[in-house]
């Protein structure tokens, strides 16, 4: 953005900056609390309500969660599923979104409506389970990916972005002898990098958060992704399970362990965003191609 050196411009920028800094601070504080909590002792946490900088430092929580290979294995599964799943989903989503973005396609409205319809109506857990079972996907990693391969929401958003690409570009590519596939991969996708980055991120986060599919479709707990471990610890440690009984045999895990697990399970997916951020600045591309 071009600098605006006028006084009103500066005031505008300063107000904007201050506001955003404030918002960022508010959003980040609880996170700091969680990170700080993971590096201290449970006694310190119990004594001070909202720890931001621990007075007593401790690595115990991390030692505990890293003392077996469960978390590494679960992390490996999650990273694998997220990578493969995101690529796969992006691929078939882009194909579909592009097809439906083309206004000269007969029947596109019917298909669009059918897609929207699935956002509202679902058959439920049991029939879906049966489909997954019939396809022979039970106990395979594919069961974490295929049943949620396309998000109707993501597809519609991507289609919207594709629709905004000037049709003239596609026309001229066609004249140059490009196939429809060629147009998609050579012209539409490169011009839609911000959208591609966004939707990839959405998919990646969805795959990273996979929980219920794993519980339903994977009987073998060694195949479980990180979210199962995370949720299990968080739920146990938060005492939020209302059906909990009078059971003294299982005291909940330490709060510090809960926080350490949150940190460990969130960090990898957090790191995705900064990598995608650079694509958000590529809007200029569109202008230049057109010009």
């Amino acid at each position, binding site marked *: *953005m*071009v600098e*605006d050196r006028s006084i009103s*411009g500066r005031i505008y920028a300063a107000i*904007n*900056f201050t*506001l*955003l*800094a404030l*918002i*960022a601070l*508010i959003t980040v504080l609880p*996170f700091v609390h969680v990170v700080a909590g993971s590096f201290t002792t449970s006694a310190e946490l119990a004594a001070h*309500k909202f720890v931001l900088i621990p007075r007593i430092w401790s690595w115990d929580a991390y030692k505990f969660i890293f003392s077996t290979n469960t978390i590494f294995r679960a992390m490996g599964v999650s990273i694998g599923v997220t990578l493969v799943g995101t690529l796969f989903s992006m691929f*078939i989503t882009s194909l*579909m979104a592009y*097809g439906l973005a083309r206004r000269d396609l*007969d029947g596109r409205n019917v*298909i*669009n409506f*059918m897609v*929207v*319809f699935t956002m*509202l*109506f*679902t*058959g*439920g857990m*049991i*029939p879906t389970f049966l*489909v997954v079972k019939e396809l022979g996907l039970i106990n395979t990693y594919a069961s974490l990916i*295929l049943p*949620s*391969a396309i998000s109707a929401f993501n597809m519609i*958003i991507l289609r*919207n972005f594709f*629709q*905004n690409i*000037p049709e003239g570009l596609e026309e001229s590519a066609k004249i140059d002898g490009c196939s*429809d*596939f060629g147009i*998609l991969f050579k012209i539409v996708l490169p011009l839609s990098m*911000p*959208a591609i*980055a966004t939707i990839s*991120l959405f998919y990646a*986060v969805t795959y990273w958060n996979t929980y219920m599919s794993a519980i339903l479709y994977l009987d073998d707990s060694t195949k479980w992704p990180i979210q199962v471990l995370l949720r299990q610890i968080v*739920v146990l440690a*938060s005492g*939020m399970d209302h059906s909990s009984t009078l059971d003294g045999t299982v005291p909940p895990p330490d709060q510090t362990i809960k926080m350490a697990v*949150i940190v460990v399970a969130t960090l990898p*997916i*957090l790191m995705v*965003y900064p990598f995608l*951020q650079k*694509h*958000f*600045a590529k809007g200029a591309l569109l*202008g230049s191609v*057109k010009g």
Partner: protein
Amino acid sequence: MQEVTVQPGAAPPLRLEKKTRSSELKKRLWRNKWLYVMLLPGVLYFIIFKYLPMYGLIISFQNYKPYQGIFGSEWVGFEHFKRLFTEPEFFNILWNTIVLFALNIFIYFPIPIILALMLNELRGNFFKRIFQTLVYLPHFMSWVIIVSISYVMVTMDGGIINELLSYFGFEKINFLLSNGWLRPMYIIQVIWREAGWGTIIYLAAIAAVDPGLYEAARMDGAGRMRQVWHITLPTIRGVIITLFILKIGHVLDLGFEHVYLLLNSMNRQVGEIIDTYVYTAGLRQGQFSYSTAIGFFKSIIGLIMVMLVNRISKKMGEEGVY
């Protein structure tokens, strides 16, 4: 702006007489054959994983017993719907759901847009990226964590906010156990968790703005505010409308976890929504049919809303979602 987006309706320039129409259609179909091939995996996906299992909705009209299966269970017609509509609390629950949804639409929904515009106005890529990353963090905290952190902050038993209030001589406020505070707490938590995350999609849309347009506007002496209003906002209008339509479909579908965690005996009067009711009355008692029937009802209302808003948006010359 007009140069960037192609207006709808300009598309197929084919308004021919009936005779040539079918041959034209064939021609078009053949020409677009690869496009249909592209659609194939997606369409297959939706058929197999979405439409095939939809027979599960049948159980809304049955007294479904897992061991009798969908095809063996007793048919009861609209029995479960009747039960829902004659539930003494039904209208209260429906109202509560709509109020929370309205808060979502009128308070939460515009915030990511404003935030995205503000982020876009930041000078310098460094701060832009830092802030962007920071505001998007909360999305990765589960509701359990967020609710338990807010508990620590607002409880009467030594919560920070109440301690501050009483330190400055104010009366303590019973945030957790009052009908009045449930909704504000709910929407604040929603904003806190989702606003930053919600900006991403708008930032992507903003990235498509042709910088040349700003240049031109500046030449015309337009200030920053006016540039935002006349260039940035119109560019992302399509995305805003699409998101709005998709959101309106979830009018009764707020999700169970967040509200359930906030709910207690003292605020159930305003806090019980359809999804939490399904949990207590249906799922926790293994009432599959009743739960499914309620889900069915939610979906129908959602569908009506989507169709309605979609039509309005098309009438106003926008694209709509289908």
